[in-house]
């Protein structure tokens, strides 16, 4: 699903809007429990000539080294 669709269906919990020097807006949508960030750049949002200029879905992943440390910590806690 594209970010703009997430916006129009209200399928998010947080919405960050950053106004850029060219007048466009970079919108970032996140939802609790969803491991994806929807970020898109849009011009003239909600206007008839609305135009999505960029659209990306970023997967949130825990860095491997933290994952490894957490696994070790759990193992350490259960063996004592």
């Amino acid at each position: 699903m594209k970010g703009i669709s997430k916006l129009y269906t209200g399928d998010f919990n947080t919405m960050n809007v950053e106004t850029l020097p060219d007048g466009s807006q970079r919108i970032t949508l996140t939802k609790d429990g969803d491991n994806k960030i929807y970020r898109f750049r849009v011009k003239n949002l909600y206007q008839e000539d609305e135009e999505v200029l960029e659209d990306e879905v970023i997967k949130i992943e825990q860095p491997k080294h933290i994952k490894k440390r957490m696994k070790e910590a759990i193992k350490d806690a259960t063996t004592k």
Partner: protein
Amino acid sequence: MADYADWTESIELLGSEIMVPFDVQGAYIQVPMDLQGALIQMPVDIQGQYITLDINIESVAADVTLNVNITASAVTINMDIKAQSVGIQLNPEWQVVQGTHKRLAAGGSNVAFGDSVTASYTVTAGKKLYITEFSGSNFITESATGANRVQGFFADIYNATTATRLFSVGGSWGFAISFSQPKVVPAGQQVQVRIWQYGYAVNNVQAELIGYEV
């Protein structure tokens, strides 16, 4: 008076261990209870060492609606809970648990004096947006020269559909407000979070509203 005699049936169970199972299974079950009278009393007195009163309502296929409608000239609801630990969640907190909370933020870097930033959101069809909190700040970009200057701002929550301000605030540096009554934006209407920068020549500004959409 009814045209039949008053009727009383007393059910009295006495014993050291009593169990009264009530098991009803069927494709279509109705258990209506209609009480009408000049005086109705339904005391439920439960006393015991270990008490569990579970009310489990589960519908896999459809929504569940549990309406409690009380109509009277005066209503008193007393809840007397004595416990070591009691958790009661207010609606905004409950909406976070339910995942229906919303946070809309508008921000900008190097915003010129007098300029503003806006976040717009059109409320989803069939829902309402309840706004419970509003906050914002104007913070300096050029700390060396702007640190001693009042970092003014003007911010508002604006319904762009009805062209009405739901709330506005002016000041310097920042603010945070909780509404005792939520601001409501109906489905299909566009709410805007806006903040104007009246601090230094260029500054960073940020404003956000918190609420829930149900």
